[in-house]
Every structure is written in C-alpha cells, then in structure tokens.
C-alpha cells in the first residue's frame, strides 16, 4: 500500500517548497488558514488555494520572543515562526478564527510583522444558543466572503460557491469511505497513514485530493482483509489544530488498532456535509452550527462527551485515548466533563498530552499499559 500512499505523505513533507515552485507558474492566490473552523469552500470558490497552517518541525528562533512559550501551544509558536522566518511570504493572505484565547493575539502579532495582501480574523459567536448568536455565524461568513472578493476584485458567485461546496462534500464522502474500510479491514491501513491522507487534503486542491483518494479507495476496496490484526480497538479523540503522529504511532506500536477517530486531522474534518440545496453561505453557516460538538464553542462539552461515548458504542471500540495539546486551554477545560461521562458509561479512557516533540517516553509507557490492560479484559 506504500506506493498509493506516497503522494499523500509527500504533500506535507515538501509543502512550502512545492508551493513556491507552483507559484512560479500559476497566477492563483494561496491563502493560509490557521486552524480551526475556516470555511475553506469560500476561499476555493474565489479561485484561491486554501492551505491549513499546521506548524512545522524546524527550529523556533523568533516566535518565542513575541509569544510566551510557557503559555502558547506548539501550533501557535510554529505558525508564527513560519511567518517570522519568511516561509509564509509566499502566501497572498491569511485567515484566522478566534477558536481559543491566543489565536486572536497571534493574529494581531502577525499583523504587525507581516504584510500579506489579506489578513482576516473571523470573530465567531462563542455559543450557538440564541437566535442572535446563530445569525452571527452567517454574518461572519459573509464578511470573509467580502474580504476575499476585495482581494480578488471580483464577486464570488453563488454558482461558484455551490460548485466548491459540492467538491468539498465529495471529499468528505470519500474520506468517510476510507474510514469505513479502515474499520472493516483492520490492519490494512495504519492510523498515521489515515492521518496523512486526511491532512494532505488540507494542503492541496480538493479536486486533486478527490482524484487521488478515488484511486486509493479502488485499491483498498479490492484488498483482502489482513490475516492478522490487533485485538484491541480504540477511538482516538482530540489533537486540536494539528496532527498527532507520534501518539498514533505509539498506539499502533503498542498493539492496538484505531477503529475510528474524533481527531482534528480525522473525522472532525469530514463528518458533517453542507446542504447543497439552499443559499450557499447560509448552508455553510448551517454546517458550522450543526457540526460535531466543539470545544471552541461553549455549552458543548456535555454534547461532545455524549458524542465520543456514542462513537465508542457504535464502533465497538474497547476504549478511548484523548489527546490534548499542551497549553490548549479549550480542550483541557472540557476534559473533566468528557472523562466523567466516559467513566460513568464504563468506557476505559486515557488522556495523553502532546507537546512539540511529540509524546514523552513516560506517555508511551502509559499507552502501552493502557492497551495491555484492555487486552487482558
């Protein structure tokens, strides 16, 4: 399967070099989208390439002089470093959403040091409990649309936006098929492979991703069920705003199969579809409102806990691993509620904190112990 996966893995490895090369021959604009919750469809409909900014693993030299490293998560610091070291000069614009406390601050620091043609912060309602807060979602989406139109000096037509929504919906359906294969043929695809496939879609034209995905799915659907596969089946949840490859590798190395997930670079990206029959901006707003529960919104923690618990029950998993990025306060604050719910439902769970360097040896050992315990049960 390695050959089929290569283009997905490569998309992330050489991202900024590839984009630089591509820019030489293309007049299309590239827009950096800081995770999470950006309606990429609007960027796509404007004829621009949305790229999710998911940090990088190089040295951090400058960002820690502006953003307090003992407070900010690694994604924030890494993305700011990419801004400071000039890597992101190739972008035509950048979009942020005020998902957590630090992103708006990051956005303002960024604005002082970088001079991209577009700098946009979406200020979303913090809860969706009232008519006024719900109507602010579409207001913010229209505001983003207007910013992109100003950059392009061209209106985004409803037709173009509906077309982009269709392409994104197709992508989500294909990803769901991939997940169904992973569930029904355990051992065929590793969790890191699946993560690479999902992540690559955040870094390339969706049309290309759909084509590559289609080819991969054909192969996978024809592949036989592996003769041996891990006994312990897990749900992995969290890892907001970026990947958690080292945690996924540790889980697999410890002998467990990730049955389904609730990861940012996972099912959270594709679970909800956008209604293709109504006004397109309104449809995107509806998707946001009805999307899977999120720690970025308030009064969602109980629903999120229920959602994870149901996922375990429906997928027949044996337990849950919750991956929290160090210093991610929105996730840390919802964790006790999730832990209480899972415990109440008799679902074993383990919380692991990830940092810039991945997960610690101590946490690897905890994962191993957790999986051994589930094996015995």
């Amino acid at each position, binding site marked *: 399967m390695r050959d089929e996966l290569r283009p997905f893995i490569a998309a992330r490895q050489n991202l900024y070099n590839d984009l630089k090369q591509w820019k030489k021959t293309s007049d299309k604009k590239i827009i950096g989208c800081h995770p999470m919750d950006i309606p990429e469809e609007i960027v796509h409909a404007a004829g621009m390439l949305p790229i999710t900014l998911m940090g990088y693993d190089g040295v951090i030299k400058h960002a*820690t*002089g*502006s*953003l*307090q490293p*003992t*407070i*900010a998560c690694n994604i924030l610091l890494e993305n700011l470093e990419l801004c400071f070291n000039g890597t992101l000069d190739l972008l035509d614009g950048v979009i942020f959403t*005020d998902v*957590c*406390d*630090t992103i*708006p*601050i990051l*956005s*303002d*620091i960024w*604005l*002082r040091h970088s001079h991209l043609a577009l*700098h*946009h*912060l979406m*200020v979303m*309602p*913090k*809860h969706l*409990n*009232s008519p*006024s*807060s719900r109507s*602010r979602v579409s*207001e913010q989406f229209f*505001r983003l649309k207007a910013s992109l139109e100003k950059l392009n000096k061209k209106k985004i037509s409803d037709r173009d936006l509906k077309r982009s929504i269709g392409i994104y919906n197709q992508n989500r359906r294909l990803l769901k098929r991939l997940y169904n294969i992973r569930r029904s043929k355990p051992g065929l695809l590793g969790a890191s492979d699946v993560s690479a496939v999902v992540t690559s879609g955040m870094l390339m034209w969706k049309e290309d991703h759909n084509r590559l995905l289609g080819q991969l799915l054909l192969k996978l659907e024809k592949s036989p069920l592996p003769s041996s596969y891990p006994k312990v089946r897990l749900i992995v949840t969290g890892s907001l705003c970026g990947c958690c490859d080292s945690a996924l590798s540790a889980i697999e190395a410890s002998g467990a199969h990730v049955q389904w997930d609730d990861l940012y670079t996972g099912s959270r990206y594709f679970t909800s579809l956008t209604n293709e029959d109504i006004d397109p901006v309104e449809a995107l707003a509806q998707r946001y409102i009805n999307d899977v529960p999120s720690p970025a919104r*308030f*009064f969602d*923690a*109980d629903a999120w806990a229920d959602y994870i618990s149901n996922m375990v029950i429906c997928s027949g998993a044996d337990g849950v691993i919750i991956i*929290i990025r*160090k*210093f991610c*306060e*929105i996730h*840390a*604050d*919802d*964790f*006790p*509620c999730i*832990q*209480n719910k899972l415990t109440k439902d008799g679902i074993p769970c383990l919380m692991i904190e990830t940092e810039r360097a991945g997960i610690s040896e101590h946490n690897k050992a905890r994962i191993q112990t957790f999986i051994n315990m589930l094996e015995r049960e």
Partner: protein
Amino acid sequence: MEIKLPRLKSQIIQRQLFTDYWQELHTAKESGKKVAWVSGMSPSELLSAMDFLIVYPMNHSATCAAAGVATSLCEISEQNGFSQDLCGYQRCDIGSALMGDQTLSPVRPPKPDLMLVTSNQQCHQIFKWFENISRIYDIPLVMIDVPFLDDTATEEDESRALEYVKEQLREFIDFLEGFTKRRFNFDHLQECMGNASAAYDLWYEGLFNAAKNIPSPISTFDLFIHLGPMLYLRSRPEAVDYYQNLKNEVIDRIAKGQGAVPNERYRLFLNGMNWMKIPSLAKLCASYNACMVTGIYPLLFTLKGGDISRPVEAMAKSAINSLLNRGLQTRINAVANLVRDFSIDGIIAPTIRGCKPISSFQLETMREVEKLTGIPNLEFETCMVDTRYHSDAQVEVRIQAFMELLENRAIK
C-alpha cells in the same frame, strides 16, 4: 526591617462594608434574595436591578490566595482532571466548588442561583470555568458574547458587535423576567447605573488619576484594594459615598505632599498582576524608594457609565470598549500612554501562568512599549494565586537587579 506603608483609612470602612455584604449574602436564602455569580466585566447592574446579590468568583479566588488556601484548592481541581496549565483563578474557584460545604475558602460564597459571564476579555477560560461551575452546581449560566475587536476591525465591525451585544442584553432581560417571574425593573436599573457611573467617576478621578501626582498619594496596591466596592457594590448609593470619602482622603494626601511610599524616587508600572504577591511586591519596591504607582489591570474593567437613559446601549458600549476587548496595537498604545502620563521609570511585567488574554503577548507588548517610550521592563513568571509557581527569592533578586538598572539610568 519590614517597611510599613501608610494605609488609606477608607480600608477600614471597606472592611465593614464587606462584612455587612457577606452577611447579606449568607442570609440571602432567608431574606428571599437570589445570588448570582458573575464575571468581572458583566453588566451586573441588570442583576442588581432585580435585587440579586452578586459574587465575583475571580475576586473569591484572590481572597482565597490572600488567606493562603488557594494552592490547596488548585490541587483539588487538578485531582478532578483540571490541568495545572489552566489559570490559577479558575483552578482555585473550581476547587472550592468541588469541595462543597467542606471548602477551605475563608468567605464560603453561597451557592449561586444563576451565573452570568461576559466574554469581553477574549478569555475562553472564564467561560469554561463558569460552565464547569454551573455543571457542578447544576444551575443556569447565561453568557453575553462580546466580539473581540482586533487591530483590523472596522467601524462596521464595531457597530455590528454593538448591535449583537445589545440584542443579547435584551435577551438576557427577557430571561431574567422569566427566571424571577417579575417584570424587569427599568427604574431601578437607572438608579443602579446612576450609582455605578458616579462611583466610577469618583474612583477614576479620586484614585486612578491621582497617581499622576509626584509623589503619588496612592500605589497600585491601593488601586486593587479599593476596586472591591466598585465590583460588588457599585449599584448602591453606599459605593458613591465610599468613593467620595476615598477621594477626599487622597486629596488630603496630595495637599500634604504625602506619598504612598515615603521618599518616592522611582515610579513603577505594573503590567499584569499577581494578586497574592502585590502587598509584598509593593513593600519590596518601597524598600528601594520605588512606588508602583499604577497598572493596567484596573483599566481592563470598563465600568464607565454612559447615557443611563438608554441603559442597554450604554452597557453594550461599555462592554465592547473594554481595553481587553481591543487589539494588540490599541493595548500597546494604552500602556505607552499610561507610562508617559504617570511619569513612569520602569515597568514590572509579570507573566501570569495560564492567563492567555493578558500574558501571552507580554513579550511583544513590552518590547514595543520600550521602543515607544524608552522605559525598561522586568519580566518574570508567576501565577495569580498558586504559590507553587512563584518564587519569592527569584523575584527579589530580579527586582534588585532591575532597581540597580534604574539607579544607573538615573545617574546617567
């Protein structure tokens, strides 16, 4: 030798006011009054107008810190799954709620009937903190969502934000009518807002601005201490009397040329804060003849009244205009202006563990303020309330070095 700083006499009056107020809180049930826990920036006048008694969980955590029990309470929340990286105020208050009747809190705030949280400090933690408390007590929580106005915000963004907040305030008034089964008392609201506005003006002129005098008649310590009635009692006439009295006292000090720190030589600015350590920090600075004359923290509260004949509009404006609700450049300019207006020689800029909306851009802010004003700053890490994340010895050494720096600059 321990330095003794002259205290304002109003502190004694305040002590009595709060003894009475907490008595009122603890007998709220018997007197048929409802209790609401509210966040610092909330339009508590709406609740006062409907005769709610108010508790500020932030202030509660500070009180626990002053009583030396905050760290133990933080540990209780950690044992219940709350990360050590969350802000100390939150961990302390949640720990207290989780302990229920067994709480170590010296004031033991009564269980709320309702909670109100306002977001105009772009602080998610305070939302989640309130959400967690409302879950522990199983009581309703209302959120007023105030959109952040970043450095790119336009006038249109501002007017949309204003409309959105107004709409939510109206929704909250409807909610209160349903919750209390009473018509909303707009007449009483105007009284409450009138008192709050008068109290704020007295506080601002009598206390905050008074620190521009050389020597400064007050220190940041006084600013913080005397913020209490502004939070809890501002809807009442007692608050107006209190701040009038305080103002007179400060005017008297100015007339006598009496400083909050005897022999004031250096004037410091506190950017950020660490509640439990302010008294010792003030004394430490005073031992170098330095007075922490002012700080950013009191200005983060937007308690300024507005046109009280249009209460919803006035409250919404006050919410979106909080300095904490504004972009980085606005905040940098605000600090730089304060540094100039208050003739500041140095800035003390603690980074507060877990407090993202105030501390995560401290480094950027301080660098820019230094560029704009030429005034040096001292940074160190601490926690609002948790002693495990504060080292007195380290801070002492850093302050000493900083004072030497100021001394050298003065000689030059």
